């Protein structure tokens, strides 16, 4: 827990200065690192997707609202769990935000225990999502390192063709195909065809 607290950031976006500042105090008193912003636009400029974090945002704000901010983050595929602050939670809004992947709601005035519990849970989730995103990005980078020929071979392996057929397709010898195959496995740091398939299928654009 302490490790996540130390390496992670809580982002607070609220137009009301008192609420924003007091929440910062409360979270800092509980040992979190906090960055607060008075508006959604300001936050988006400062946000680093590599950082493990949780966004606490007010639903009602002048300019970009909390819900609009959620849309933007989803579009950017940001690994950032969102906690909405509401004055009075209304059901249709809650349902729609939940469906889009928002994870929780906090009602004003806050209950400290509840706040801590939610934040902690969100952070675990966030760490996981950041790790996933990072792995994904790595594999993507590796895939892009393959030569043109290697990519062609990979494409056909994924399509389920045998070495002999690939050799025929590309007009090269079976031995060469086997050599490319070994290179691909090495570069992607996998030992089985199953793992290879997994990576190739999660990044179709990289394999293509």
């Amino acid at each position, binding site marked *: 827990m302490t490790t996540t607290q130390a390496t992670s950031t809580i982002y607070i976006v609220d137009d009301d200065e008192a*609420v924003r500042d*007091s929440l910062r*105090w*409360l979270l800092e*008193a509980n040992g979190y690192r906090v960055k607060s912003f008075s508006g959604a636009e300001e936050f988006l400029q400062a946000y680093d997707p590599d950082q493990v974090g949780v966004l606490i945002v007010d639903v009602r704000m002048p300019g970009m609202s909390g819900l609009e901010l959620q849309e933007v983050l989803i579009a950017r595929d940001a690994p950032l769990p969102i906690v909405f602050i509401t004055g009075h939670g209304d059901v249709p809004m809650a349902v729609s935000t939940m469906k889009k992947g928002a994870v929780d709601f906090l009602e*004003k005035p806050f209950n400290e225990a509840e706040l801590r519990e939610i934040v902690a849970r969100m952070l675990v989730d966030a760490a996981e999502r950041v790790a996933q995103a990072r792995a994904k990005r790595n594999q993507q980078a590796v895939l892009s390192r393959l030569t043109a020929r290697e990519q062609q071979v990979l494409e056909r392996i994924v399509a389920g063709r045998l070495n002999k057929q690939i050799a025929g397709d590309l007009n090269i010898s079976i031995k060469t195909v086997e050599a490319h195959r070994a290179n691909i496995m090495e570069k992607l740091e996998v030992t089985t065809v199953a793992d290879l398939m997994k990576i190739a299928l999660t990044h179709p654009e990289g394999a293509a």
Partner: protein
Amino acid sequence: MATHSKKSLIPTTFYDQAHHPRRGFYWLTPVIVLILYLCVMGAFIWLQQLHNDSVMFVTIDQETRQQRLMMIIVALSFVIVLNLLALWRYTRFRTRAEAALIAETGFRRAMENSMSTGMRVFDMHGRIAYVNPAFCRMIGWNEADLIGRTAPFPYWIPGRHAQHRETLDLLLSGRTPSSGLEVEAQRRDGSRFTARMYVSPLRDPNGEQIGWMTSMTDITEPKRIREALTAAHERFMTVLEGLDDAISVVADTTEGLELLFANRTYRRFFGAQSSGHAELLGGRLGRFTDETVEIYSESAQRWFEVHHRILAWTDGRRVRLQVARDITERRMHEEASQRQQEKVQLTSRLTTMGEMASSLAHELNQPLTAIANYNMAAVAMLKAGTVSNERLLEALEKSAAQAERAGKIISRIREFVKRSEPRRQRVSVQGIMDNAVAFAEIDARKRQIEIQQSLPSPLPDVLADPILIEQVLLNLLKNGVEAMERSEYHVLHVNVSRQDTMLEIAVIDRGHGLHNPERLFEPFYSTKSEGLGMGLNICRTIIESHHGRLWAEENPEGGTIFRFTLPCAPQGEIETKEDLQEQSA
């Protein structure tokens, strides 16, 4: 001929001759002549006998005999001359009679020829015995083609012979109406015409019937005009009868109103009597303007929009035309939409109130959240034991600042409420009562509840904001009416009484009653499924801002009594000092 005047073209000689007084004695002339002749002959024979035989007493000589013979011859000649004279007279009379007859016949013929009525005679067997030129002209056949013909006649319309024969049989049986028959016939050229035919028996001079005389007039054109008129009238009547407006025309008579015309819609509502017209006049007899009035008819149980107008009737009389349109549906819609409107207004007022409350809640939530956060942060820091005094102080100061912010919000609300304080003025209770009761009666009538007022006299004025008090009273009346909806009593009482310097108004219902009436005044407490529970609470606030009281108690007879008091306006003064101060504030 000699006697008729030159100026007159119509011969009268025949008539004159027929009535000649001497006509009856013409037989006398030959009789006298015969007797004379017989006498003379007798004397002659006697004289002859004297010659042959001797006379017993006197001897007659030849001389005397000669003399007597002469006398006889003279007498005989005289008789002959007399006879000739008589014969001459007679012949002259005959000649004159003949001339008169010719003239008369010519006249009759001319009359027949120039007559436009077609004359025709049937004998007793239905044979045509005579037709006049007008008849021939009318049907286009010659006299020669018709005389002596029996049915079917050439002028019968082909294919309708049965009908013609029927008419002929009717004619020959002598049962034709004296008003004549309408018959149709076909001309020689195939065109048809309609005629009116009159039939009369034809009798010889002895009074014995020898046939039937018919006279026919071509009525094709009059009939066409009449039919066109009838069609126009029918169209007009169809339109009038088909109208949804009740149209009636009446004339003033000494016995009241006489109904001259009423269309179907009128008859459907009021029957064929003038009472409906009188009812819709609404007592405005004699006063006619172009304005439209809306009148409720008790007998038809409907509302009408009525127009009146004075008309000159077909017989020249001045009559009243009334056009009444049934507007019951429209009025119902209007009333419904008015109620809807009121409901919408009330709802919107409540929505505004709700929005205000919601925005206030949000507004207050901000500082409260901040205060809670700062405090929880301070607690957390204290618990962790990592806190410096300065930091703790900062948190507490921030918390205090937020508490102040909350206070400011509350005083802002106060300010807002103060601005809508009642504007008290001297008003009559009667006016307030009338307005509120009129509004409440819309609802009450629907539930068949009567609102009965009892007011003391004289009624003092009160110091109040009339609009607010009307709202309070209306609210209480509506509650009462709703409470009595399923009650067996149908009268809601409103009593006004003077209590020292205050006026008390009590709304007494006999409805379902309440166990704890005082609870009604708690905010958000409601006995109604759709109620917000704010009405009575607001009412009490309004009354208290008028320095009065509003409370509820159980009605010992069942139901609930709501009472509120208002200060009476001081006698003679228009506005009190206090009011002036309030208004200037």
